[in-house]
Structures are given as structure tokens and as C-alpha cells.
């Protein structure tokens, strides 16, 4: 009996040792991200990276997009040892860095001589409060104005242009509005319920930020949106909010002429066009601008990745991170219809060649904006201010408060937050 046990035990031990011995040559980089199974570019990164770096293997941990930050935050608090962490919310980089979860990258960047200028400012949101670069963006979605070409053709109205003021946009939206609800209604434009879709344009002048505690500059955009709502040119916020209607569904329904939205919507439109689900032609232009702001100014939200402080393969992790964020990664990403953070004319050319991409010149020109500002600057109170502005946003948009009252309340609450 004892002998059998000993043999069995030895067999088990050998079985355990065998794969370990084989794997010794390869270093496996564990990468935590979301929507991996449904987002093609993760697999493309893996294949391209493994081909370029023999001996390094990439293994993904696929988490749900919803509650991603909370899940990863808890994992890290528990001492998780994954190597590369993708960052979904901007605030995560600052928070995780403050907690010591993610490692500063400055030494690696200096050693590799990585050209930070290539990110056109999109890497700045990953600088923590102490000035360390703690993550790199691989993808940067800035905001553009999508439009339904078929509706403009039918109405005999000229398409929106890359140089349009917000007042002209409002005029155009009203002009494109027609019909009766439930029969043949056409909406001139569409705002999603997010604060960023309605008023974040205020940061496009490069002077105002949402963290300065002074929100008077939002009044123009609130009045614009509420005025369009009164004119029936956009769907009413309370209805959208109560019904849960998604902007994708609204635009895909084919009765919305314009949609200011992040560039990520392109991925959906491209795939819908290619699968034949799209019932109309679309195009996009730069978002409108205020008179005193140069045309083509917009704001953007990068998506990046970082290195876990507890990682045991930091050098390998850096190789992967610098690969996806650098030029090679950008070339891998561009053909999927997503916008790499690293962008130049060559990359833009690749992007415009994607099947399902609008073929007009204006759309191609809109790929390279004049200036892209961050949705939120870096700062200690940013998460609190974000929560606060989102809350006040709902009050203004449901008209529980007038624009003036709402902005006054924002200013008062911001003063309290900043004073603490």
C-alpha cells in the first residue's frame, strides 16, 4: 500500500514538474483587460508581439467592462501579481498610483528613449500627482460629429463641415428637424445623457477646465442644448434617461441627423456597415467650435495600460506596454478602425483605408484634429468634482434647476470640495 502511494506521489510530482520545466524558457506576461473576447485588437497585439519577441508569451485575463475598476482595485488590494493592467477610467491611474499599485515608468521611458511627443498630449492624463508617468495610452478617442448623409441628401441640405461654429450647428440641427413623433419625425441632432456630450466642449478653448471650480463657461452649452430640446430638434433628456435609450440605437434608427460622440462609435459604425446592418450612409466631421476657438479643437479620452508594482516580470511587461503604445502597436491597431494614441499622417492613411470607413475627404481630414484637450485635467479633487458635476448636470437637464441656479450650485459645491 505504502509503495503504491509512493509511486503515485512520485507520478503526481513528475506531472506537476513537467510543464513547469518546459515553461521555464518562456516568460509569460499576464495582462488584465476587459472585453478581450469581443475586441479583435487584443488578439492582434498578442500575435504581433509574440512574433516580434520570441520567448515572451502573452496571457490575457478577460474581465467584464462593467465594474472593471472595482474588480481590479480589489484584486490589487489583495496583492494580485498580474503584469500589465489596462486602465478603463482615467481616475484609476491616479488612484492606483497613489495606492502604490502601479509602477512609475519614467526610468523605462528614459532608457528606451521613447518619444513622448508622439502622443500629442494624450499621455499627460497618466501623470500622477507627483509627476511620474504611470501609464501609457495606446488608444485615444477624441470627439467628432457623426452625421447621417441620407437625411441631409433627402432634405437637400449641405453636409456639416469641418469648420462650423456651435451657433451654425444649432441652426443646422433646427433646419434638419421635421415630422411628427411616432410617424416621420427627424431629429436634427442627438445628445446622449452624459455631461461630456452636452457641455464638455467648454474645455476646447484650452483655457477652461472642469476642475477650476468655475463653471460659468458651461452656461452657453447648457442653453444651447436646452434650446434645441425646446425646439424639438433633439430628444428630451428626461425621456432618454427614463427609457434608457442608447445613443447607438438612436443613431442607428436612422432618424437622427447628427450625433456628437466619441470616436469609438466609429468601430460600431464600421462593423455595422460591413455586416449590412446599417441602413444609411454616414460621415463625420470635426466637432463645432465657438467663434474664438480654432476649428478642429476637440477633447479626448485616452485608454492606456500600466505595470503592476507587484509584477515579477516588470521588464517583460514594459516590453509589451511600450509595444502596444508605440508605433508598432499603432500600426496594429489602426486597421481595426480604432484610433491609436500614437498618430501621424501614415497612420491616418491606414485608418482611412479601413473597409466601411466614410470615403469623403472631410471625414479623412477630420481624423487629425487641430488640438485635443483632456476631458479632465490631473488633480487631487478631480474624482469628487466629477461626481459633483455629473449630479448637477442631471438637475439642469431635467430642468429641476435653471441653468443659472445649477451653475451657481456647481460653483458653491466646487468651492467646498476644493477648500477641504
Amino acid at each position, binding site marked *: 500500500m505504502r509503495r503504491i502511494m509512493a509511486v503515485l506521489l512520485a507520478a503526481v510530482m513528475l506531472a506537476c514538474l513537467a510543464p513547469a520545466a518546459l515553461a521555464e524558457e518562456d516568460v509569460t506576461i499576464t495582462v488584465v483587460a476587459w472585453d478581450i473576447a469581443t475586441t479583435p485588437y487584443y488578439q492582434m497585439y498578442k500575435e504581433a508581439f509574440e512574433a516580434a519577441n520570441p520567448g515572451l508569451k502573452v496571457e490575457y485575463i478577460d474581465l467584464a467592462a462593467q465594474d472593471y475598476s472595482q474588480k481590479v482595485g480589489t484584486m490589487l488590494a489583495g496583492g494580485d501579481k498580474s503584469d500589465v493592467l489596462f486602465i478603463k477610467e482615467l481616475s484609476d491611474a491616479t488612484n492606483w498610483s497613489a*495606492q*502604490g499599485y502601479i509602477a512609475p515608468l519614467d526610468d523605462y521611458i528614459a532608457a528606451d528613449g521613447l518619444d513622448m511627443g508622439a502622443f500629442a498630449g494624450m499621455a499627460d492624463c497618466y501623470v500622477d500627482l507627483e509627476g511620474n508617468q504611470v501609464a501609457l495610452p495606446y488608444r485615444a478617442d477624441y470627439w467628432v460629429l457623426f452625421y447621417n448623409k441620407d437625411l441631409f441628401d433627402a432634405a437637400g441640405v449641405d453636409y456639416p463641415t469641418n469648420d462650423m461654429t456651435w451657433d451654425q450647428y444649432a441652426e443646422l440641427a433646427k433646419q434638419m428637424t421635421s415630422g411628427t413623433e411616432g410617424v416621420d419625425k427627424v431629429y436634427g441632432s442627438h445628445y446622449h445623457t452624459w455631461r461630456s456630450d452636452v457641455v464638455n466642449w467648454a474645455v476646447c478653448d484650452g483655457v477652461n477646465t472642469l476642475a477650476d471650480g468655475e463653471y460659468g463657461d458651461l452656461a452657453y452649452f447648457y442653453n444651447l442644448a436646452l434650446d434645441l430640446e425646446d425646439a424639438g430638434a433633439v430628444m428630451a433628456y*428626461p425621456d432618454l*434617461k*427614463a427609457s434608457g435609450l442608447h445613443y447607438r440605437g438612436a443613431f442607428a434608427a436612422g432618424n437622427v441627423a447628427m450625433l456628437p460622440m466619441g470616436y469609438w462609435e466609429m468601430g460600431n459604425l464600421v462593423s455595422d456597415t460591413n455586416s449590412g446592418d446599417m441602413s444609411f450612409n454616414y460621415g463625420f466631421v470635426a466637432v463645432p467650435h465657438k467663434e474664438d476657438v480654432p476649428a478642429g479643437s476637440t477633447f479626448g479620452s485616452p485608454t492606456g495600460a500600466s505595470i503592476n508594482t507587484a509584477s515579477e516580470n516588470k521588464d517583460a511587461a514594459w516590453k509589451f506596454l511600450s509595444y502596444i503604445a508605440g508605433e508598432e502597436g499603432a500600426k496594429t491597431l489602426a486597421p481595426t478602425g480604432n484610433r491609436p494614441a500614437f498618430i501621424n499622417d501614415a497612420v491616418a492613411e491606414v485608418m482611412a483605408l479601413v473597409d466601411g470607413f466614410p470615403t469623403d475627404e472631410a471625414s479623412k481630414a477630420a481624423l487629425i484634429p487641430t488640438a485635443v484637450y483632456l476631458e479632465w485635467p490631473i488633480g487631487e479633487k478631480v474624482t469628487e468634482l466629477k461626481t459633483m458635476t455629473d*449630479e448637477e448636470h*442631471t*438637475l439642469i437637464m431635467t430642468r429641476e434647476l435653471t441653468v443659472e441656479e445649477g451653475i451657481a450650485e456647481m460653483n458653491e459645491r466646487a468651492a467646498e470640495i476644493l477648500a477641504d
Partner: protein
Amino acid sequence: MLNATGLGGNANRRYRAGKLEKRNTLIAYTFLAPNFIGFFIFTLIPVAFSIALAFLNWNGGALNTITFAGLENFATLLKRFNFTRNELGVTLKNTAFFTLFTVPLSIACALLLALALNRAVCGAKVFRTIFFFPYIASLVAVCVCWSFMLMKLGPVNQMLELVGISVGKSWTQSREYAIWALIIVSVWRNAGYYMVMYLAGLQGVPAELYEAATVDGANGWHKFWKVTFPMLTPTTFFVSIMMTIYCFKIFDVVQIMTEGGPGRSTKMLVNYIYQLAFIDIKYGQASAVAMALFAIVLIITLAQFRIEKKWVNYM
């Protein structure tokens, strides 16, 4: 007559209690052990740690980064405390309002449903299953349906219009009505849930009591108050405590239906705790708010236990 059938004779109870006193403590512990060991390790220890956190500074980093904060977390939360602007004050007020209406309404509805379906109603089985449905259905589906029903031109507003009440807004998008939308959905889900509890409780009511009451000439109403309700008090006691705790911990319904809005009109204590712990990453403050919640619930529960002896009938 009722007393003679054994309904809560105090002298009797005391006599029995005296005998129980002599039972072996050791045996009691063996009964407790399987549950208590698991409970102690997996719940009590983390809870104790989180209580301690309220007096510490910790942002989730390595454990050696923890520093002692004393009452600092509480001081930060109570800074400029009021019920209109201060975060804790606002969420506390909302949660209290929500609890105040949801608990009694849920209990009343659950009891009514259980009483109606405990009888030989045709199709009782089907009805019981249907009323339990809202509890097992996807919360998203339940919330979406109610949001639609409570929309500006939805069926609820139209019906209210008929009786002369004009709302004129989507409930979830109004500071005045949003909290009522949450109350309605919660009562709706809980009524079916606690109906099950009451149905179980009703099986414990001996038929002789009703027979005796009938001999006494009691009508339906009397029988309810003299027999059914007293016999259900242990269940009601349980339900009211569980409901109070549930209401103070309300989170997911809010997150799906209103996200705490418009503004902060439906932001609840746990939504605030969630924000502190997972968005602002201030575990110490999150624990401090949780302690406030804990203290309130504990006081209410202790009070209920204290007055339990006055109104709860145990055989």
C-alpha cells in the same frame, strides 16, 4: 377563552424559561459551532477589521501604509453637517425617508398577499408563484418596466390624471417623485419575497384557535386581530428587522433606476459608501459612514428587541 388555548400565558412562559436555564451550555455550543466557526472567520473578522478602519487612514495600499486617524474620518464627514448640502446629511435623509415608507408598506402588502393566498383561492399556487416572480426576475428588467410605467406619458400618470392628480413628469427624472419610484419598486419586489415568509408563518397558526374564536362569535376582522396577527408576530418581528436593514442598505435598485439622481435626490448611504470606497478610494471614510449606518441600524434593532417582549408572542 383565547388565553386558555395557550396564547401567551406569561406565567407559563416564565416557568418554562426557568427550566431552560439549566440546560447544558456545552451542548448549546456544539449546536452553534458549525455555523459560528464559518461565520466568525468569514464575516466577523472582516467586519471587525472594517470597524477598525473607520479609525484608520488607509487608501487600499500595502497594509504597512495604514496610519491611525482617530476620529479624523468622522470629523471630515461631519464638516459643515446639514441635511441639504453635506453628503452624509443628504444621503442619511434620503435613506431615512425611503426606509420610513418602504418598511411599513412592504409589510402590509406582504401580509395582505399572504392572507389572500393562504386560503382556498382558486389558482392560489399560480398566484403565489407570480407574486414571487418580481423577486427572481432580473432586477434590470423590473426596473426598466417600472421606469416605463412611471414615464411622463406612462400608464401610471394617465391613471392618476383620471383621479385628478397631475404629475406631468417622468417619476425617475423628478426630484420630488424619484424617491417614490424607488419605494414602489422596492415594495413591489419585497412584498412577494416576504409573502413567502408570511405564508410559512401562517402554517404555524393552529386551526383550533380559529375554531375557538368562531365559537366565541368573533367575525373575520376580530379573528385577524385576535388570532392571526398575534400568532404572526414572530414573523413580523423578523420581517420588520430584515426590512429595516435592507432599506438602510439599499443600493442596486438606486444604481439601476436613478443613479442617485436627479442631483442627489435619491442618493443613499450605501451609494455614498460605494463612491467613497471605490471611486474616491477612501476606505477609512467609507468605513466611517458604514459605522454611522451600522449604529443607526443597531439602535433601531435593539429598540425592536427591547419592545419585542411587549408585542411579540412566542408560544
